[in-house]
């Protein structure tokens, strides 16, 4: 019987939640790397027993751990992330130039086709690639060397490249998102990038609401079988592109608030998408203290709240950008983690939810592997 392995990164370690295809009976292991911040844990789509974890600490810096047995054991691999050449400045919070400085790895994106290739999105925003399973890392400097990069400024969480999407059918085509700069597209496997933010409107955040860069994109999602259609949760606004990011339009529709962090696409229904509305950028918790996932079955604009099994009073947690994911079973499973330490799962496309665990450290990321 097939199964799932949910990989959870938290402020104080990593946890692995496993279940069979019924997704009702869970085994929890961890904390792995207890006491360390684990920004992201993700497995290779080619070899599911190979998993990478971004382990970091304000004291002791960045490590990358790799497991080759599905998370049973781990070994540290390469942890040197050196910018190519002399990195120039980006804008600092006060508008002054600030030198590019490596802080941490936010996101690890394994290649869809090669188990030795893995990409890393880092703070300060840049893209690194390993072609030896994480043993060594090279900056692919086309992202950081774009003409607009000197104007990028950090969001509250830092100037981070937090989202990497790779078109499974054409690995040359990639999308990256930087807070607070926007979305960038590459058509040559990451060597060169260009901003693709046309149609985004950031009236509350930018003096020029439709600027080429500067948008605080929180997360992107793509169905692997329909790579031209992208969905975006921006700081404010849920957006959609039907042409590979060339143009965007808003699909917030009847959401109670269009602020939020993660966005996901159902693995079996490319027009079914999920967001978790958060009250505002000033109040990072669900409206009215009611935790609701919203689902659109028509690719946006028309949304329905999903509440069964989720707390509907006194809930003041947040769900961060990399903390929601979908499995590839049918019906599709959806998982998300909260800053309150709960990981919720739905085995029926979002109709009902259960807390798989309730009292973990604040959850930074949730990924899932669908196992044969």
């Amino acid at each position, binding site marked *: 019987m097939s199964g799932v392995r949910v990989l959870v990164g938290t402020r104080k370690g990593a946890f692995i939640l496993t279940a069979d295809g019924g997704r009702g009976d869970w085994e929890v292991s961890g904390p792995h790397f207890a006491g360390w911040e684990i920004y992201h844990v993700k497995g290779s789509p080619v070899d599911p027993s190979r998993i990478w974890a971004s382990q970091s*600490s*304000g*004291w*002791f*810096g*960045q*490590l990358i751990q790799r497991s080759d047995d599905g998370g049973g054991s781990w070994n540290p691999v390469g942890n*040197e992330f*050196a910018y190519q050449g002399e990195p120039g400045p980006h804008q600092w919070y006060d508008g002054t130039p600030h030198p590019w400085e490596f802080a941490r790895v936010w996101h690890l994106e394994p290649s869809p086709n090669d188990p030795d290739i893995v990409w890393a999105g880092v703070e300060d925003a840049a893209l690194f690639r390993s072609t030896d399973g994480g043993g060594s890392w090279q900056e692919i400097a086309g992202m950081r060397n774009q003409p607009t990069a000197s104007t990028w400024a950090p969001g509250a969480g830092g100037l981070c490249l937090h989202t990497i999407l790779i078109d499974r059918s054409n690995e040359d085509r990639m999308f990256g998102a930087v807070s607070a700069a926007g979305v960038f597209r590459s058509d040559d496997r990451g060597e060169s990038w260009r901003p693709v933010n046309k149609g985004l409107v950031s009236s509350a955040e930018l003096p020029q609401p439709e600027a080429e860069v500067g948008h605080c994109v929180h997360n992107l999602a793509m169905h692997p079988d329909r790579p031209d259609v992208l969905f975006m949760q921006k700081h404010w606004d849920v957006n959609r592109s039907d042409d590979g990011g060339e143009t965007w339009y808003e699909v917030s529709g009847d959401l109670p608030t269009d602020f939020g962090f993660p966005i996901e696409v159902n693995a079996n229904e490319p027009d079914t998408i999920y967001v978790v509305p958060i009250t505002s950028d000033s109040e990072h918790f669900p409206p009215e203290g009611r935790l609701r996932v919203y689902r659109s079955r028509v690719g946006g604009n028309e949304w329905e709240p999903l509440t069964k099994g989720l707390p509907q009073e006194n809930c003041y947690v947040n769900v961060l950008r990399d903390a929601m994911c979908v499995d590839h079973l049918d019906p599709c499973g959806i998982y998300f983690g909260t800053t309150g330490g709960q990981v919720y799962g739905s085995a029926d496309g979002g109709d009902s939810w259960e807390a798989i665990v309730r009292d973990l450290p604040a959850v930074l990321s949730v990924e899932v592997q669908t196992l044969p």
Partner: protein
Amino acid sequence: MIRVQLPYHLRNLAGTGREVELEVDAPVTQRAILDALERRYPVLRGTIREHGTADRRPFVRFFACQEDLSHDDPDTELPAAVAAGEEPFMVVGAISGG
């Protein structure tokens, strides 16, 4: 033998006890000790000193003989008691937070 004490997380990474012993040629300096430590335990590269510059990470401190040596030049000779193995060279995670 030079004695080096490591903080909890670095001990776990290196798979050692609280204290490790290292052969370090004279003159015994911070740099000489840390170079030897990283040769023995490559996993510690980048965790105490930055890659590239070899600068001390901001929230790491070096203590020995009841003194904070964190701001000393890394090529300054350490106290004789450290070089003789009578006192440990301590790598410490700085107090941080509330």
